[in-house]
């Protein structure tokens, strides 16, 4: 996973931890129903000034509906949305201090790139000279200075994406909403643009709310992520929190890949939990505060890259957090290899190991008997 976080020096670090900081966008108990279908189910969240906030979820998770309610295209069935302290319930989209970048870009096909970007400024009755200047600035910001006279159909997908971004930014909104901003780009361009988007956001200092289904994209760009599932918010947190401390099986499985060991709580203490798992064939020791009563059914999530794989029994082991099995599959990805190991209990486990050596010298091969082990902090205890 590309986990290189661009530095965010311009914005106040982690404003959501400061109880005195006022949220910029406040979503209060918002529910949206389409007929019998509940698209967004009792969502409450706060977004702070200068944040790069991602709504992450699969299709049908309600993330786009939530974004469209911020833009004003949908009205909440219940609940309220405040932007900068103002109740948005009766504010139509064209009067909101919000701009949106559409997934399809929604560029006006009959207007040139310049006219597209100037469109929003014309609505605000900005003077001609200022429009020309701000359009030129916006074009330069997205590195499209030469393309102002072209029509949208004369541009490539990546260029159209930039025009859409420039058009949304040129009005200097308080809040910019981006619906799958990189969805239509190919992988290579997407990775480049991720960083560019973060740089632009830091340069203009606008609060971004991004909808995405791509967890890697969310991890790379966001200050915080809200993971959504079937209309509700499964977890809100920084990329690290979401990845390292998932609060549910859904989040753990949605972000990255994970091994889940089913078991029952044996001990639950302020500094650790002990779980007996038949699937892992051992007791699992987790060095986080235990929050479940002994006897509760639970799962222990362990990320594949936190597991060490070896042919020899790990030294000094107490038999906890340790399993044995046979290598069934090896996927060589260049930088890492993914091993699939069939445990003696019949459970299949995934392990990723960095390729420190060349492949030809790889010590572990198919049908080898191997030991898997991980440190006490690696696991997370989850219920449903």
């Amino acid at each position: 996973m590309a986990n290189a976080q661009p530095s965010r020096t311009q914005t106040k670090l982690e404003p959501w931890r400061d109880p005195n900081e006022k949220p910029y966008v406040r979503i209060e108990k918002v529910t949206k129903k389409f007929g019998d279908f509940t698209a967004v189910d009792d969502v409450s969240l706060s977004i702070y000034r200068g944040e790069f906030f991602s709504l992450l979820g699969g299709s049908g998770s309600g993330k786009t509906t939530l974004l469209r309610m911020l833009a004003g295209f949908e009205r909440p069935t219940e609940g309220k949305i405040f932007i900068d302290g103002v109740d948005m319930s009766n504010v139509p989209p064209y009067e909101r201090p919000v701009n949106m970048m559409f997934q399809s870009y929604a560029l006006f096909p009959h207007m040139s790139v310049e006219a597209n970007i100037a469109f929003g400024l014309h609505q605000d009755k900005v003077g001609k000279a200022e429009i020309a200047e701000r359009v030129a600035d916006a074009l330069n910001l997205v590195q499209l200075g030469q393309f102002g006279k072209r029509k949208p159909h004369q541009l490539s997908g990546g260029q159209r994406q930039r025009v859409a971004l420039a058009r949304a930014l040129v009005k200097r909104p308080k809040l910019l909403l981006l619906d799958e901003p990189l969805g239509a780009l190919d992988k290579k361009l997407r990775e480049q643009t991720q960083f560019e988007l973060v740089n632009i956001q830091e340069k203009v200092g606008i609060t971004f709310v991004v909808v995405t289904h791509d967890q890697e994209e969310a991890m790379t760009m966001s200050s915080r992520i809200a993971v959504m599932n079937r209309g509700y918010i499964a977890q809100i947190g920084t990329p690290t929190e979401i990845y390292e401390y998932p609060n549910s099986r859904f989040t753990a499985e949605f972000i990255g890949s994970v091994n889940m060991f089913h078991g029952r709580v044996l001990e639950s203490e302020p500094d650790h939990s002990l779980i007996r798992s038949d699937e892992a064939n051992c007791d699992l020791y987790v060095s986080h505060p235990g929050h479940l009563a002994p006897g509760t059914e639970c799962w222990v999530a362990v990320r594949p890259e936190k597991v060490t794989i070896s042919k020899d029994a790990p030294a000094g082991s107490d038999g906890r957090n340790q399993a044995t099995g046979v290598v069934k599959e090896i996927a060589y990805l260049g930088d890492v290899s993914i091993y699939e190991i069939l445990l003696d209990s019949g459970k299949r486990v995934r392990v990723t190991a960095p390729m420190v050596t060349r492949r030809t010298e790889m010590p572990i091969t198919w049908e080898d008997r191997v030991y898997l082990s991980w440190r006490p902090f690696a696991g997370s205890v989850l219920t449903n």
Partner: protein
Amino acid sequence: MAETVQSEMRHTGFLGLLQRVGLSGRALVVSVPYAWLLLFFLVPFLIVLKIALAESQMAIPPFTSLIENVEDLKYQITVTFYNFHYMVTDDLYIVAYLNSLKIAFISTICCLLLGYPVAYAIAKADPKWRAPLLMLVILPFWTSFLIRVYAWIGILSNNGVLNNVLMWLGIINEPLQILYTPVATYIGITYSYLPFMILPLYSTLEKLDNTLLEAAADLGCPPWKAFLTITLPLSIPGMIAGALLVFIPATGEFVIPELLGGPDTLMIGRTLWTEFFNNRDWPLASAVAVALLLFLVVPIMIFQNVQGKQGGHP
């Protein structure tokens, strides 16, 4: 596997045959519509042109022939431009042409003004209502065109439905003379050709991407202004298509001015009819028809030009 090879071989054999006659499969496919146009458009047109270049005479057929056998093995081609010359010199024809264009133009504008809101409403309607609404638009075609125009006589005449209703409501005291005036012609043409305006407009408006309007609203544009700056310009192709579909046949319209218009509603279709059937002057009637065609070819070419440019869009 064996089957494919066999069919390919047959294919090659067929293609080979075509190539021997100097035709590729592609040329064969392309030539079908051309052959159709040649047989059913160009040939009849040339016949009409031939008659237009002949002289009228009291005989059967009522025009002189193009090629005459003067004596053994000696043929003579007689071409006269008399009819075209006569058309230009006699005011009647020019006035009739201009009047036709005027009536067709005003009717097209009426169709556009009436058809646009209807097409817009259908395009914006709930998808489950669109098919029935479109059905209603084309429903009149299920009745004879002639009968529908006759029905308008019943509506517009002095003791017709419209006048009776207006008098009953007390809006007017004596019947309005609408029937047998140009107004009746406008009403008739607008009514008859309205579906040809609505259908292309609907198909353009229905394809219009709704997110463009959302984007406009998002950028601070209220709905009425978004209609003017986004919807209207993007529906121009539909307006042009609809306008040509109304304008071209309306120019040559004969039945509606004949039945609803008065004797002073001069239109080229009527003039043509009079020359053909009342005066039995086939050559002059043919010359009028040829000139009408040339008048109409120009808008068609404009239309095709616009369509060609549209093709450049994704």
